[in-house]
């Protein structure tokens, strides 16, 4: 079963921007070449560039720099293509390849749930959860100076609500409380 939701991040923006840039360059030069072939002379707005380009020799340092730049860009694109992206979803227990059922929970949604639970805890002013793989880190701000009890309460509350969700892999919760705005 091919998955629809639980997939690694795509490279849409990188591919589109690269293709559009190359398309712009190739189309511009295509038009210039067609004008040259049709009219027998180069368009006036490109003659200056062509005159300088005509005299470029192989040992020109600008040519070497340009070629190295293009090669580096190519290498970066290759790395971007090969580096596996992160998945933005977590599998649920109900997910089953054999039964052709894909069940996932959105990572951002889980973070929203954690934020809601953390902010419901007594003494918490605000919460900012970050979910990375199977680890959820919740930063909470509180006006209380003694933060240990609040951290423990938030950790217990968030862990409880996440445990209620039938995730295929459990998520461990860590909390860091900082005092803000207290007297």
């Amino acid at each position, binding site marked *: 079963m091919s998955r629809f939701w639980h997939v690694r991040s795509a490279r849409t923006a990188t591919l589109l921007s690269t293709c559009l840039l190359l398309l712009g360059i190739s189309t511009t030069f295509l038009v210039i070449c067609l004008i040259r072939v049709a009219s027998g002379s180069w368009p006036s707005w490109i003659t200056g560039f062509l005159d300088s380009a005509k005299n470029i020799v192989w040992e020109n340092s600008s*040519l070497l720099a340009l070629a190295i730049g293009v090669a580096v860009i190519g290498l970066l694109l*290759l790395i971007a293509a090969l580096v596996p992206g992160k998945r933005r979803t977590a599998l649920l227990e109900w997910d089953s390849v054999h039964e052709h059922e894909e069940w*996932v929970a959105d990572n951002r*949604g889980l973070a929203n749930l954690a934020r809601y639970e953390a902010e419901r805890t007594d003494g918490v002013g605000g919460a900012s959860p970050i979910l990375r793989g199977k680890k959820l880190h919740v930063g909470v701000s509180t006006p209380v100076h003694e933060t240990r009890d609040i951290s423990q309460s938030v950790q217990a509350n968030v862990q409880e609500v996440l445990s209620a969700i039938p995730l295929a892999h459990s998520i461990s919760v860590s909390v860091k409380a900082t005092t803000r705005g207290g007297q």
Partner: protein
Amino acid sequence: MWKPNSVRQRVFLALLGLLLMAGGACVAWLSWNSTQNGLAQKRLIDSFPAQMPEVGIYIAGALALISIMLIVVMVSALPRKPGKRTFIYQSDKGTGISTVDSGTVALAAREAAESTPEVAHADIRINGTVKSPILYARFALRVDARPMDGMGLVRDVLIPQMEQALGARFARKHVNIDFQPKISGTSAKTTLT
């Protein structure tokens, strides 16, 4: 509900990267070793096997081909939604034939889901065939409702009801459960002034 052509995008990106890297490295190598190759003072333009206007025609042809290929790459790698194709399920119960469009079932299921207190938003698509329908769905649950209530509603009520309406079990289900942040309304807190 977009499906990114992840593999295709990565393949195209890798090929583009390899082409640029190979081209750039080749020119850089020739330029770097131009003295040994005897190319040092040779003009770049003189390295082409033909002169204008013939070379212009070749370059124009190559650029046109590159432009077409780039457009094909972009179009084929764009993210897309699951097919909009709907089908009509027909049931004959002896008393008459009733028909239902899968798009109507999806719409009704969405409205039913959104009318419950647990589901804030639903996006449902059904495609496939009459005998083997495929479900693509995303349910955004409210964070202030109990998560398992919403998830149970989706799994045990909404989806079986859709299957009942379609008269067939889903051959494949792709379900995403999201949790929507609570929209803050007017504060009920008393402000001391």
